[in-house]
């Protein structure tokens, strides 16, 4: 198994343009075993990072998919040498665990462009609705030399907050005629967004929405960049209008904050590793606690006043420091010595 990750990483880094299959495979591996993400770095000290990771979220029906498709088209024209990645996230069915992923439909014209890599992910019951797999896919897209990665999610539940975790910039896409505009503006979306896009800009109600949005943003005191007057872009994605201006805006943001983003990502990655280590440790300790012997007896003793939580924790830590494969022997020894 270990060979797989290292081998795949090597293959991809040696020939990013020609290793679609390997990259896709690695993405699946990491999606299914997210704790192994840190392993990818074994071969690679300086992991290539995208210039920008842009989150695109917002209520359904605002035209996100069309916007993403147009962004990809324009970006490719503007930077023909650069590669980009798109991660499209869809919710898994809580009942069947399956998922319907249809975001590709709007951007199939890019399927045969070797400089565009699109990956669909299902949320897989992850609390906020955003997929755990995003982390791994992002890593691999970096390795593929994707300079821009777009993460598209539907802005329901808390997934927009989660996008903020992974993305350097979060763009909230709104459109007129989506029901109560005011309600929308009161939701958590406003806190998470760095950039706002009013799509379907030539429709009735677009300028009203823009004004309402501006007013709401001016009142905003918390959130990611509350000191920064969040820019609003107006687009008509279907007609391809406003896309160039949106790209200009993104590039401005990159010019200002690009280095900060990379530092933040690296910091976050380190935190993730720390988190992963702690989680693995906790998992093992929990297993030890659960199995018969020290765990059950220890808890009974606490209830009987024969020992304390602190003492049990110390013993657990001492035991848990051993490898899980030797764990059973340890417990048996303990049991013997207690008799």
């Amino acid at each position, binding site marked *: 198994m270990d060979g797989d990750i290292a081998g795949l990483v090597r293959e991809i880094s040696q020939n990013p343009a020609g290793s*679609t*299959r390997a990259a*896709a*495979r690695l*993405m*699946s591996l990491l*999606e*299914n*075993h997210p704790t192994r993400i840190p392993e990818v770095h074994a071969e690679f000290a300086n992991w290539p990072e995208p210039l920008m990771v842009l989150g695109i979220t917002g209520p359904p029906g605002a035209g996100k998919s069309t916007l993403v498709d147009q962004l990809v088209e324009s970006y490719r024209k503007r930077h023909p040498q650069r590669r980009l990645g798109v991660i499209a996230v869809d919710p*898994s*069915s809580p009942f*069947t*665990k*399956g*998922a*319907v*992923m*249809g975001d*590709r*439909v709007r951007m*199939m014209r890019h*399927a*045969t462009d070797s400089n565009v*890599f*699109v*990956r*669909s992910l*299902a949320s*897989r019951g992850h609390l906020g609705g955003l997929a755990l797999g995003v982390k791994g896919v992002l890593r691999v897209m970096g390795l593929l030399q994707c300079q821009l990665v777009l993460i598209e999610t539907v802005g329901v539940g808390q997934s927009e907050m989660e996008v903020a975790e992974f993305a350097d910039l979060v763009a909230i896409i709104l459109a007129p005629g989506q029901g109560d505009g005011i309600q929308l503006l009161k939701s958590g979306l406003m806190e998470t967004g760095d950039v706002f896009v009013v799509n379907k800009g030539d429709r009735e109600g677009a300028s009203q929405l823009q004004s309402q949005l501006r007013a709401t943003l001016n009142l905003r005191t918390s959130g990611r960049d509350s000191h920064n007057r969040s820019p609003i872009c107006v687009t008509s994605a279907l007609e391809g209008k406003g896309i160039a201006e949106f790209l200009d805006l993104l590039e401005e943001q990159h010019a200002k904050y690009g280095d900060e983003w990379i530092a933040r990502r690296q910091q976050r990655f380190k935190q993730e590793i720390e988190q992963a280590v702690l989680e693995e440790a906790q998992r093992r300790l929990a297993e030890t606690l659960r199995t018969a012997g020290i765990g059950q007896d220890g808890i009974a003793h606490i209830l009987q006043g024969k020992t304390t939580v602190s003492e049990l924790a110390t013993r657990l830590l001492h035991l848990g420091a051993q490898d899980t494969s030797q764990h059973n022997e340890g417990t048996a020894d303990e049991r013997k010595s207690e008799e």
Partner: protein
Amino acid sequence: MQTANSRARILIGKPGLDGHDRGAKYIVHILRDAGYEVIYTGIRRSPEQIVEAAIQEDVAAVGLSLLSGAHNELFKRVIDLLKARGASDILVFGGGIIPASDIPGLREMGISAVFTPGASAKEITATVDRLLSAPQGA
């Protein structure tokens, strides 16, 4: 093969110009009901687009839906392209309006299963389950 964390991924595509997508969309839903993660490409896709998408998505299988009679030509293109890209381990199954007399030919070219009108959701998901859990080359 499903485990707690991993789920099998399948791509459903409509190659060629046929725009009748009721069947394809139905298959997408019943496979989702069976626990698969299903990527749908929409209509009017070239074999190249379908194969490229299948590889990027690292799917275990591709389902092709076609009602216009162009299945012999277009299914073959998909099989050939997968082979050329070193992805022959991705299984291909098909459905739509396909005369019984064409099915042996399709099977021979590498299509693992052909579903025709009237196939039940149970049959389809059972067949897909079986295909995906069989060791390669079976």
